[in-house]
């Protein structure tokens, strides 16, 4: 039955009435909640999720023969089979599985020393169609978009597009599902506020677009999808915020100038740091918003994100040797900030965004957020870095270490038990 205490509280305690003062500056305002976002990985597969297509003629990287991998790294067959045998009672995470890390030169940990290991290679992405944005303004370089726009810069896709983690139709790749499920179930929420100064929201030269965090979870309806029109309060965040100067052209929001932003990454990296970031988002007739956020992101944190998600687990589940990801990203990097070394430290990238109409409020919930401004000065300080964690386990060099385990993995570990 009904909670009378709560009813009484609502009735007798003075609460803020739902009066909605609207700030005066913006002539129009739209707001959204991101209900799905994933790296923009164009799928040209002929069938299924991982099958071959014009982009990946060989399909996805196949599952590794890990016994063979270990033997190539210097383990004897007996040792390799012992380590890979699930029935082996000593094949514990801290011994058998963790030992997978130590296959570099002189048994170095390949996750933190990937160059100690020869590049195993990834299946090449060979297509010329990609989703994303023309980041450098050059239509003579890059991909062609599915709609025929030239100059699309998305080397991240070219680099990792045939990895099973990222390959698949929209919303169906394993990586996209994993992280979006987490987001949709309450791990984090990002909202978007769009405000303009002109009379016509569809064609306005002075538009601002803000990406913010919110502490309010998305809510699923009876059909299991995220429901539109919920209200979200902006949660000031010291790192995750993106403010884009933009314009609208026929209902499409486009950046007026690139800008650096850091958003919440739907991936293990968490920080989606983008230099020269731009947006291209269409305000659709049904009230939804769809498009891309693109820019150049540092590639090393992407690799480290996978390592810190437990290297051996990621390798087993996603069928690639992680050093190959390292080499591929380093090879594919196509940007470095002005003034830095000549080595490219960033890679062109695009995030595909689907957002639903929502009400976005100022942090105190007192009014609709009509202005796109920075709330970073209201944000609490970021918590001190505690190192990577998976659940309650601390990750050290890509591994979960149990100091009390009888057998420990390592360069000098005894693999086979005494006979």
């Amino acid at each position, binding site marked *: *039955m*009904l909670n*009378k205490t*709560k*009813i*009484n509280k*609502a*009735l*007798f305690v003075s*609460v*803020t*009435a*739902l*009066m*909605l003062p609207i700030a005066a500056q913006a002539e129009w305002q739209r707001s959204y909640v991101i209900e799905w976002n994933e790296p923009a990985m164009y799928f040209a597969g002929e069938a299924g999720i991982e099958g071959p297509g014009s982009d990946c003629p060989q399909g996805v990287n196949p599952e590794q023969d890990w016994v063979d991998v270990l033997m190539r790294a210097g383990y004897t067959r007996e040792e390799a089979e012992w380590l890979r045998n699930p029935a082996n009672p000593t094949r514990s995470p801290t011994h058998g599985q963790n030992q997978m890390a130590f296959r570099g030169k002189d048994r170095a940990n390949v996750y933190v020393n990937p160059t100690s290991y020869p590049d195993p290679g990834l299946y090449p992405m060979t297509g010329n169609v990609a989703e994303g944005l023309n980041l450098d303004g050059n239509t003579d370089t890059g991909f062609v978009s599915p709609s025929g726009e030239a100059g699309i810069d998305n080397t991240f896709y070219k680099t990792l597009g045939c990895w099973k983690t990222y390959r698949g139709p929209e919303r169906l790749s394993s990586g996209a599902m994993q992280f979006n499920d987490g987001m949709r179930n309450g791990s984090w929420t990002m909202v978007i506020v769009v405000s303009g100064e002109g009379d016509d929201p569809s064609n306005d030269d002075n538009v601002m677009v803000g990406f913010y965090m919110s502490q*309010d979870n998305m*809510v*699923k*309806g*009876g*059909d*299991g*999808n995220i*429901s*539109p*029109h*919920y*209200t979200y*309060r902006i949660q000031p965040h010291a790192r995750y915020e993106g403010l884009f100067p933009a314009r609208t052209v026929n209902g499409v929001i486009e950046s007026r100038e690139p800008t650096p932003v850091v958003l919440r990454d739907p991936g293990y990296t968490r920080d989606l740091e983008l230099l020269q970031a731009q947006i291209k988002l269409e305000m659709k007739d049904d009230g939804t918003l769809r498009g891309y956020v693109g820019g150049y992101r540092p590639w090393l944190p992407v690799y480290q994100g996978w390592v810190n998600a437990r290297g051996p687990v990621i390798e087993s589940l996603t069928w690639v040797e992680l050093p190959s990801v390292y080499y591929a990203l380093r090879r594919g990097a196509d940007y470095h900030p002005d003034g830095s070394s000549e080595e490219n430290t960033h890679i062109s990238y695009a995030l595909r965004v689907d957002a639903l109409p929502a*009400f976005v*409020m100022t942090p*105190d*919930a*007192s*009014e*609709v957020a009509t202005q796109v401004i920075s709330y970073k000065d209201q944000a609490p300080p970021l918590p001190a870095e505690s190192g990577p964690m998976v659940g309650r386990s601390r990750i050290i060099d890509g591994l979960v270490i149990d100091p009390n385990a009888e057998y420990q993995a390592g360069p000098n570990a005894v693999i086979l038990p005494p006979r």
Partner: protein
Amino acid sequence: MKSARLFVLTLSVGVVLHVAAHSTVVIADDSTLATHKEPVVVAVRRLTEPQYRQSIEDIFGEDIQITGRFEPERREIGLLALGSATLSLTAAGFEQYFNLSLDISRQVFSEQMRHAVMPCAPASPAEFDRVCAEQFISTYGEQLFRRPLSSAEVEARLDAAALGTEQSGDFYTGLQLALSSMLTAPEYLFRIERAEPDPENADNWRLDAWSRASRLSYLFWNTSPDKELLAAARSGELHTENGLNAQVQRLSSSPRVQDGIQAFLVDMMQIDGFDSMIKDATIYPKFNQLVADSAQQQMIRTLVDLLVVKERDYREIFTSNETFLNRPLAAVYQVPFASSEEWAPYTFPDSAERSGIFSQIGFLSLYAHPGTSSPTIRGIKLHEIFLCEHTPEPPADVDFSSVVDSSAATSRERLLDHMSNPGCIVCHQRSDPPGLALEHFDGMGQLRKYENGQLIDVNADLFGNKFVGAQGLGQFLYNDPRASSCLVRNVYAYGAARMPGSAERPYINTQIERFAENGYRVPALFSQIALTPEFFNVVIPQGAQQNTNNVASAASAQ
């Protein structure tokens, strides 16, 4: 531990059966009335789930956890309160009450709680202390039965407690059995009202003082009489005008009156059934149980705030656009939720077309089909709930095929086709117009202007009374005198557990006039009715006509 529980369970079954044989419920029949002037049972009403819960909380404290299922209730002539007077217990239902009694007794006599509950301490916790046990049984028995226990009733529980103590070696385990037997007794599970001979008029019967106390307590607070009210019953004050005035004043001025009026409003407005409401997720994807529960709470909060907290004109429930929202409801209404509280007050703008309690998604979604709106169901319920006009069931051989084809045209056109059937028009010409005025709200209560691509017409004509949309319907109901008279009749029926008869029409008409004179304020109406002698009228069971009138006034002192 397990064996101890089994012992309590086994012994409890025996005790309940044994004690039941000592119960002294006297059902009046011809011979009883003809030959004795003993009190007779004139009404038996099963406690509702909220009443059961609140009574336990009031008697033993709010720390008692009540976890269990309750028998379903039944609505009669629009009120569960009337249905409660016709309900009995099924075997499965009794089993639930029995399990609840064991669980409550265990909690009451847990080491943490027993000291706060016990009026005395036994000489030894391992031995039976008859004096202390009797003190507990008498004290709590009176609160549970809402009257003093007879000596036979006390003795039966003492026997049970003694037996339990002897076999378990623990005084409190023995008392658990005694308490469990009281919690499963009909005297607790049912409000048993008794009439007694009127000492000032030998030919008349009157409701006895304990029953009067219960009637007042459940009307104003929806719970068992408190100690002060029981004392007033014991002293006879409740039979005096001054005594009754004092108690009504006390009950009605307490914050707890909100509980009582809320319980009535929930009953009369039929704000139930949300647990089992089903909507087609492909048509109404926003619907989920959270929305359903919120919609129910919204109706209750709106009514309580308007009628109890602000004591506004009852008729404003048909026109007010003031309500409360939480985050899920704001999403369905498609308005921002500008608060960090769980609920916040909200006023709908005119453009929202929300006017009155029936334009909230609770009413609109409850009285609709899983995939479409239903002007007919909504109209039937508007008539039934707010005007006390009931609609008969449709004939069994009606062809509904044209009505249920929701892909064709608008509801109005489908219903007009249906009404061409002369067997249907009699009811539909009354039920459908109010529902058609609400057609700007879909089956979940969301605002819409079009159905199947056609503009929806919300004009309505109810026997020459023309109105447009929810706001027009609200104004029509505001001005309709049937609405306030329906409320007055329902308040009386809710409190007395019977609809006033034709002989009481002048009385009801007087109450309606006074209700209007008092500004249509519901709390004042409760006091007004409770202070009238007619509120305590009893209906003497069939066969007693030779001794008294069928409806006997109980307020001989007034």
